[in-house]
C-alpha cells in the first residue's frame, strides 16, 4: 500500500493501481468541477479516452487519473475548470 494525499487528506492506495480506482475505493467519485457552473464530474470511459476524470496531480493539471498509477506521496487535487500549473 502507498499513501496518497487527496485534497489535503491522506488516503491509502494499492501500489500499481490507477488514481481513479484508488479514489473510488476510498469513496471519492467527484474528480473535477466544470469551469463555468462548477458541476461535478467523475470517471466516464475509464481507459484514457474521454478525459472526464482529469485532476491536478503533483501540480500538473489535466492528468488522466484512470490511466495514471498512484505513487507514494502523490499529491492529488480536485481540479476546477482547466486547472492551473503549480
Amino acid at each position: 500500500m502507498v499513501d496518497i494525499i487527496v485534497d489535503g487528506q491522506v488516503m491509502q492506495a494499492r501500489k500499481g493501481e490507477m488514481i481513479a480506482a484508488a479514489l473510488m475505493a476510498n469513496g471519492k467519485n467527484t474528480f473535477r468541477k466544470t469551469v463555468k457552473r462548477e458541476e461535478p464530474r467523475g470517471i466516464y470511459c475509464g481507459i484514457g479516452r474521454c478525459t472526464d476524470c482529469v485532476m491536478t496531480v503533483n501540480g500538473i493539471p489535466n492528468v488522466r487519473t484512470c490511466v495514471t498509477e498512484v505513487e507514494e506521496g502523490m499529491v492529488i487535487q480536485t481540479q476546477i475548470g482547466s486547472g492551473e500549473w503549480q
Partner: protein
Amino acid sequence: MKRLKRDIVVIGSGPAGLCAAIEAARSGAAVLLVDENAKIGGQLFKQIHKFFGSADHRAGVRGIDIGEQLLRQAEELAVEVWLNCEACGIFDEKTVWMVRDKEHSVAVEAQRIIIATGAVENSINFPGWTLPGVMGAGAAQTMINIHRVLPGHRVLMVGSGNVGVIVSYQLLQAGATVAAIVEAAPNLGGYGVHTAKVRRAGVPFYTSHTVKEARGNGHVERAVLVKLDSQWNQVPGSEFEVEVDTICIATGLTPAVELAFGSGCRPFNSPPLGGLVPVHDRMMKSSIDSIYIAGDVSGVEEASTAMEEGRIAGLSAAHSLGTITDQMFAERLEQLQHNVDALRSGMFGQKRREAKDAIVRSYGVER
C-alpha cells in the same frame, strides 16, 4: 529528435495489434509494437468471460487466458514492445512520431505500419448524463475486473447487447445489484447464452424503454425510465423511477480512427460497423500501400474477429516486404480468411459480413 528504423511498427497492443505483431514476427519481419498504456493487451484482460465461435477461434477460452497465451508468444518471438508510448502522428506515410514516457519525442521510420487503435464507447445524452455515477459499461468492467473496485452498488444498464449483458453479469459477480437493463429496441440485442444468465439471476429487462433522466445531488441517485413507441418516441406519462447509484451506458462503440485519417487513409462510412472506418481490402491494407489496419478501428466487431484480422494484417504486411514466400503466404492467408469468414457466418454474422464486403468492394472501385 531520435530517428530509428524498423520493418513494421504496430500501433496498439490489444487483441488485433498483438496478433498482428506475432504473425508478422513469425513471418520473419522485425516488429516494434507500441502502446500508450503501461500494460500490453488493450481491453483483452478485462474480458473474463469465455469467447464465442468454434474451437479454431479459442471459443470457450476466457479472454484473459487468451491474452496470457498471446503475451508468451510475443515474448518467444522477441517482439520489441514499447509501452507508455503514444503514437501522435504518421508522416509521409511511413514515419511514426511517438512520445515515450510523456517525455521523449521519437520518430520511427517504418516500411509498413499496422494501425490497431481500437474503438471508443458511445455515449447517449440525457439530462443528468454528466453526473458522477454515469459511465461507460466498459469503464465499470475495467473497474471491477482490472482494478477490483466496485463503481457502485445498484446499477442501471442501458443497452442489452453483448457488452450490456456480459458486464451486467460481471457486476453481479462482483457484488453489485443490477436494478434493470433497458433496451430501446423492441428486442434484446445480446446472445441468448449471456442474456439468459442475467435473466436467471433475476435482473428485470425493459425492452422499448430508455433512460430519460438521471437525478441526484452531486451523484446519481435515481434514473427516470420511459417507454418508447414503435417510432422510438417517448410515450408521455409512462415514466417511472428506479433507485440506482450507477448508470452504465452500453450503446455500442465507435472506431478510434484519428491516427488513420490523420495519416491520409481514405474513409468509408459503415454504420453497421460503428461509422467511419478506413477503407481496406481483404488483406487489411488501407488506401495507403504502407499502412494496414486491423481490429475495431477497421469496423467494430468482437475480439475474436480482431485477432484474426490482426493476423491477416501482420501476415500481409510481412509478405509485402518479401519475408515469406508467395506460397507460404497464400496458404496461411487462406486459413486465416477461412477463420474470419467463419466468425461472420450464420444469422448473427450476416450484417457484419455484408458491411465488411461493402468496404472491400469500395476499396476496389475507388482505388
